[in-house]
């Protein structure tokens, strides 16, 4: 019977177009971009080979160091924030709101689908100090604190940025983790309660270990996204002040399109890819070890 389902011509017809488009748009350009790393120039002026010059430049470039550090710092803080906020919300949904949580769940999820640019502009105006004192600064003024120029220093801009991205996606992780928590059988919780585990002890010893798998997949998904952050930063700070909030993704974009240096841009893109792969590898390793131990 498998003769029909193994029809080679049909397989080629069904799979061929997708594989072709995918190869042309993604696979071939990836290899091609690798080749650009050994050149300098751009599409309009043409490319000339320059050996491994781009690679030694990446190693020495202080802007790359800053961008790499920013990328890692941002990914660590925002991933932790997203998953922790999401987990707390999920616990709230499951243990306190119970059946009534559907509306809150839907509402807190909503910012996930909002266009990042719109959210970025909203937060920019919400935290601004001039020309109009935004709501956050008016609130600070109302309790007697002077206005803070949030986007005037890289430090405070970072926290607004992190806050915005956590605000945007905590509802998403809450729903993801909620699904994991709901799967814990009531009997297990009930028997743990009878054994005297309540509140934090119940969460720490029963709920947390049992929801570890979904917690880990949230973590992996989150870090995969935060390492590639681009839209929120462009919309909120555009990398500023100076280059204080510039991650690798944005530095690559600026190098390529503002300074028209495609060769060096490709090398930075390669560095970003390597960082993404390394981090995923490490998280996978750690999560697998945790799962087998837990």
């Amino acid at each position: 019977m498998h003769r029909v389902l193994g029809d080679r011509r049909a397989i080629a017809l069904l799979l061929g177009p997708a594989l072709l488009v995918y190869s042309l748009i993604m696979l071939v350009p990836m290899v091609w971009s690798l080749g650009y790393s050994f050149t300098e120039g751009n599409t309009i002026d043409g490319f000339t080979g320059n050996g491994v010059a781009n690679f030694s430049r990446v190693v020495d470039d202080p802007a790359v160091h800053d961008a790499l550090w920013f990328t890692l710092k941002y990914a660590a803080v925002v991933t932790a924030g997203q998953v922790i906020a999401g987990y707390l919300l999920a616990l709230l949904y499951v243990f306190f709101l119970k059946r009534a949580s559907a509306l809150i769940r839907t509402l807190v999820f909503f910012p996930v689908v909002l266009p990042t640019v719109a959210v970025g502009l909203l937060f920019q105006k919400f935290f601004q100090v001039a020309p109009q004192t935004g709501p956050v600064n008016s609130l600070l003024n109302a309790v007697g604190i002077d206005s803070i120029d949030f986007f005037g220093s890289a430090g405070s801009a970072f926290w607004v940025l992190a806050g915005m991205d956590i605000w945007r996606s905590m509802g998403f992780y809450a729903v993801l983790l909620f699904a994991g928590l709901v799967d814990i059988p009531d009997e297990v919780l009930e028997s743990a309660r009878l054994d005297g585990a309540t509140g934090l002890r119940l969460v720490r010893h029963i709920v947390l270990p049992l929801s570890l798998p979904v917690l880990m997949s949230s973590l992996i998904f989150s870090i995969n996204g935060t390492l590639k952050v681009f839209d929120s930063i462009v919309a909120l700070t555009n990398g500023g002040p100076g280059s204080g909030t510039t991650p690798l993704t944005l530095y690559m974009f600026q190098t390529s399109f503002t300074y028209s240096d495609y060769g060096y841009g490709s090398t930075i893109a390669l560095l970003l890819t390597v960082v993404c792969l390394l981090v995923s590898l490490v998280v996978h390793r750690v999560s697998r070890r945790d799962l087998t131990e837990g």
Partner: protein
Amino acid sequence: MATIGTPVKTSASGRGSRPGKAPRARRSRRGSRLWVKIVVTLLLVVEIYPMIWMFLTSLKSNDDYLNHSTWSLPTTWEWGNYTEAWTTGHIGLYVQNSLLAVVPALALMLLLGTAAGFALQVMVWKGRGLTLLIFLAGMMVPPQMILLPLFTVYFQTGLSGTLWPLILTYTGTGLPLTVFMMATYYRTVPRELFEAATIDGAGILRAFWTISVPLVRNALLTVGLVQFFFIWNDLLIALTFTNNQDLRTVQVGLLNFTGDFGATQYGPLFAAVCLNVFGTLLIYLFLNQKVMKGLTAGAVKG
């Protein structure tokens, strides 16, 4: 199973048999209920107030915005800000561009992705596991890795200056998730169904189109919604390939919004942001359960 089953019985009988503990439990529950109320209220304020503030500000005149408290209601309700944003701010044109890029990309992606998902999950052949892995690899690699070669190709083939670079790039970058999700949905459809269809004389291609596609109709809508939000909200690809002002998508247009007026017009700017937000809100109002299910499914499987 038996060890889990026993405590349930104990708990059922235990509830009635320990009346002494009840008052304390009730008191702490009332306390926690207040605490929950405060948290939920805070949560609602944090989620909703920014939107209300944005909406109210979109109805203010520039003078009103700059010279009155940020908390105040508009002194005059300037609904004209919306027409201003739509025409002078070109949001109308940008929405049209976005639709012209998103709709064909979505259609292509779903068609190709469903066929590939069928071939990878239902059909039986050597190497399908590896092919699926190759598709999956595309989800890991940052899009920065493909932008420059694509830019070169689009430039040299004369496609820059049209919306084709967007349509093609969105289709290609969306395929991995689409293929993967469709393959997962096909796992729930028994293979025997297609075998039976082919016994009745339908070719396998016809079985794919007339039997399998209607079966995964729901999944198509879910995947389509998820991808719609991804493409509609995309900034990176749109920013790279729309070098011409007339081709801007909504997101690129919004980012450069202030440039279209001499000085910043705050009312129309907020109106533009609102239009963008309300568009998504409208879809979300009707399809929120599907959106939530689809987006989280994409995450777990990815």
